[in-house]
């Protein structure tokens, strides 16, 4: 029996604002428990929510980046339930009237998944369980979130993974969120059902929670796909329920049935007037929206003719692509810039835990260095030394080359004795080259280069070595 898998995702994304959705308290992962709270976040008697316009702006930007339809008027609603991390006894969310309907997320070059809606809501606090009892930390209470609800358009766990990768990339590019699953700034619940191949009605769906990474989402869905297929194949039925993923056991377990789901008694929050998103706000959101990743990839292909691999690397973050273009605009060859970014600058930035544009290297200085290398004035190896010197001393390429004496050595009278010394030091390699193994010459070249700290002109070294090693 074959089944078609139907998956829909619900993703909560924390917006990158300085303060909370309805209070002036600062947002941040750091800080002692309950230090980032305002009376509003505590739900004290008499307090009222005050909408953060920056959160609305970022939410609208997210909606535009995901090609959703922003609604001119929407409403906040109260979702009522008791829990110690929910100070007011209700969460302010949007229910019948979300601020955005529709939208889509690409899955690959050809396919995309549709979005059902996006709405704004506030986060709850956190419970900390200790031996002495349960403690409540409300630093996170009131942090602005958008909930992105996908249509059940995904047909495999791999699709779900692709959905999340692309969603994250778009939201990062849009500057909407850090999308860090480990820090909780992106959270995902998944719905999955199976239907017989050829059927038109979806099967009974199961919701999976406790998914802490994209890989975990995929693994949990793969498990659930197998579990449901086995039940259906044996003639059983799927219970409509919420299940928890237990990563260590690599399986899901039942958390609650659909019948026992609470009645949240949603109704429009009388403390907040309707949310009106006018043309001015739309324009501001659009203005803050940079080029999105798929558009950038297409453009990098068309304008710079770079290989797909390079484009993938250069468009992983908005900063990388922007830095690449600044160096190119400063007069360096695109492919050279790409190579240097991938082999030198990006690993360096990663090592230091910063974005490439925060390394402290001005794009014109990088361009000057790469031009010098392309012109043959210094060797690639010397270029790398110059780069580190530039970084350490905040100087330009010419100063680095001067200070390190990196100008290329082409004088045969300097190179020749070192070539002979290399042949003497590595007789086996020399013999191999003589015997016709051309690859072996690299070891000899390296020996000469090391002696001259990489400054020797590779062509001159090659010529002299070959003259001494010509087959007898």
């Amino acid at each position, binding site marked *: 029996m074959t089944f078609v898998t139907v998956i829909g995702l619900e993703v909560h994304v924390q917006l990158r604002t300085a303060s909370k959705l309805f209070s002036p308290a600062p947002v941040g992962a750091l800080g002692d428990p309950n230090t980032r709270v305002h009376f509003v976040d505590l739900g004290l*008697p008499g*307090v009222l929510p005050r909408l953060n316009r920056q959160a609305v702006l970022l939410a609208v930007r997210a909606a535009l980046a995901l090609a959703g339809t922003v609604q001119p008027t929407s409403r906040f609603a109260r979702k009522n339930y008791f829990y110690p991390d929910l100070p007011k006894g209700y969460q302010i969310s949007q229910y019948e009237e979300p601020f955005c309907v529709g939208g889509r997320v690409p899955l690959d070059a050809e396919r995309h998944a549709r979005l059902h809606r996006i709405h704004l809501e506030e986060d709850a606090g956190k419970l900390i369980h200790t031996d002495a009892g349960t403690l409540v930390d409300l630093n996170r209470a009131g942090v602005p979130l958008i909930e992105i609800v996908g249509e059940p358009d995904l047909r495999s766990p791999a699709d779900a993974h692709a959905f999340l990768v692309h969603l994250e990339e778009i939201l990062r590019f849009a500057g909407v969120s850090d999308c860090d699953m480990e820090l909780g700034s992106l959270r995902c619940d998944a719905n999955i059902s199976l239907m017989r191949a050829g059927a038109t009605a979806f099967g009974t769906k199961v919701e999976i929670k406790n998914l802490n990474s994209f890989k975990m989402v995929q693994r949990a869905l793969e498990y659930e796909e197998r579990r449901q297929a086995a039940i259906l194949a044996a003639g059983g039925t799927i219970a409509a329920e919420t299940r928890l993923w237990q990563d260590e056991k690599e399986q899901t377990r039942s958390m609650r049935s659909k019948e026992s789901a609470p009645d949240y008694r949603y109704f429009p929050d009388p403390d907040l007037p309707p949310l009106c998103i006018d043309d001015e706000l739309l324009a501001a959101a659009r203005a803050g929206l940079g080029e999105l990743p798929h558009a950038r990839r297409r453009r990098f292909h068309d304008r710079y003719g770079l290989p797909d691999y390079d484009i993938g690397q250069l468009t992983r973050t908005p900063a990388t692509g922007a830095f690449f273009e600044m160096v190119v605009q400063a007069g360096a060859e695109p492919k050279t810039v790409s190579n240097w970014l991938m082999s030198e600058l990006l690993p360096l930035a990663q090592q230091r835990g910063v974005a490439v544009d925060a390394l402290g290297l001005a794009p014109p200085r990088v361009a000057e260095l790469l031009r010098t290398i392309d012109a043959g004035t210094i060797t690639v190896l010397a270029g790398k030394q110059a780069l580190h010197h530039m970084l350490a001393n905040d100087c330009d390429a010419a100063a680095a080359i001067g200070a390190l004496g990196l100008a290329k050595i082409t004088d045969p009278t300097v190179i020749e004795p070192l070539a002979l010394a290399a042949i003497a030091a590595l007789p086996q390699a020399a013999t191999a080259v003589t015997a016709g193994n051309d690859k072996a010459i690299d070891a000899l070249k390296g020996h000469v280069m090391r002696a001259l700290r990489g400054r020797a002109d590779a062509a001159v070294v090659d010529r002299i070595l070959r003259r001494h090693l010509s087959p007898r």
Partner: protein
Amino acid sequence: MIPTPGALELVRSVQTGERSAVDVVADALARIAAGDGTLRAFVEIGAERALADAAAIDARRAAGQPLGPLAGLPIALKDNLLRQGAIAGAGSRMLADFVAPYSATAVARAQSADAVVFGRTNMDEFGMGSSTERSCHGPTRNPWDRTRVPGGSSGGAAAAVAAGFAPLALGSDTGGSIRQPAAFCGVTGLKPTYGRVSRYGLIAYASSLDCVGGIARSAADLALLLDAIAGVDAADPTTLQATAGECRLALGVRTDLKGLTFGVPWELNGPGLDADVLAAIRQTHSRLADLGARLVDVALPHVPHAVPTYYLIATAEASTNLARYDGIRFGLRRDGSGSLESMLTHSRSHGFGDEVQLRILLGTFALRAGWQDQFYGQATRVRTLLRQDFTTAFARCDAILCPTSPVTAFPLGARIDDPLAMYLCDALTVPASLAGLPALSLPCGVGDGDLPVGLQIIGPALREDLLLQVGHVWQQHTDWHRRRPPA
């Protein structure tokens, strides 16, 4: 004891230095000490802090600083408005120890106008009641007849003003909580337009209905208060952006009511009224006509549905507004048997009185999935129709007249076991609440037993200036507001 002067006279005497703020406040405190033992208008007086606040105002005057428009004026505060450092208990065991860490906007604005905001006046728990019998502190008594209720929920505030304890009181009105006790106690009460005064720092009962307003001896004194506390507030997104005129300045504009048309909807001027109230209102109508007003019939066809509509919306909102009282962060906590659910249940069962629990249950029911549309949803639709009724009526008149209450002050305990009879007391006040309109209650006569009867004037949105103007003219031609209850 000499009758207390009105707010305007007091402010003038403090501003000119004729009297010190300390003297004015000490006078009020002495009256309370002498008279509140039987009335119980206050649940806490806070004499020390009131005198200290007054002394600070006197010091500023001595230093040559000009004083604000409420200079030295003692304003009694309802127990559901927050004043930093003082308990705000909302008449509830749940909040018996809750010390406010911030002040309500209305309180802060009155204080920055140099008023001495003091005390905690008694109220029905969380504003849920029409008699001030639903307070964890016990009932307040009506100064006109101590066997009767002062009305509610701002019963303590109305009794305090009627007894001369304070020239002004800050209160709140959700379905009549300022107007009805003002009528029962023979004083003047104003519920402003919804959103005219910030709700920030008012302990919520029903968010879409709650209004902060005042009780005073005259419309002129209320104008003084409203000017000081009204206006847009960033902390309350439901405050109105529209600018409205100063009320004090508008007062002198007219000496009679010529050129004004008052609408008299039969729905609010006949059905269910006690005969003595009806008689007093009829006399009031003819007196208004004598003053030059034209009275016309208008229709408010959806008004008969106002009480059930009000109780669905108010209880629905209350059921979620009061969810924060869970015993976790503040307020009363009872641990129960150790589980979270047991702690929640015990805390709420002990903290809330019967009426509050009843309304939470009603409201929870009205919002249930599958039932919400036919209860809460239906009520919001009727509310829209009711608003349209008023809009239509205001095309034909400047303001609408009706009694504030169908009855005069009733005996303590008379309606406490009959919620429906109690809810029907609100029949004439909830229509303006649902429509978000300003409404003023003026003493306009007496009923059986010499008990005060109130006239309610409902105006278009933001027309408090008109209501207070009319009230001022009325009070310049009548003496009902000058009558004092027996000592």
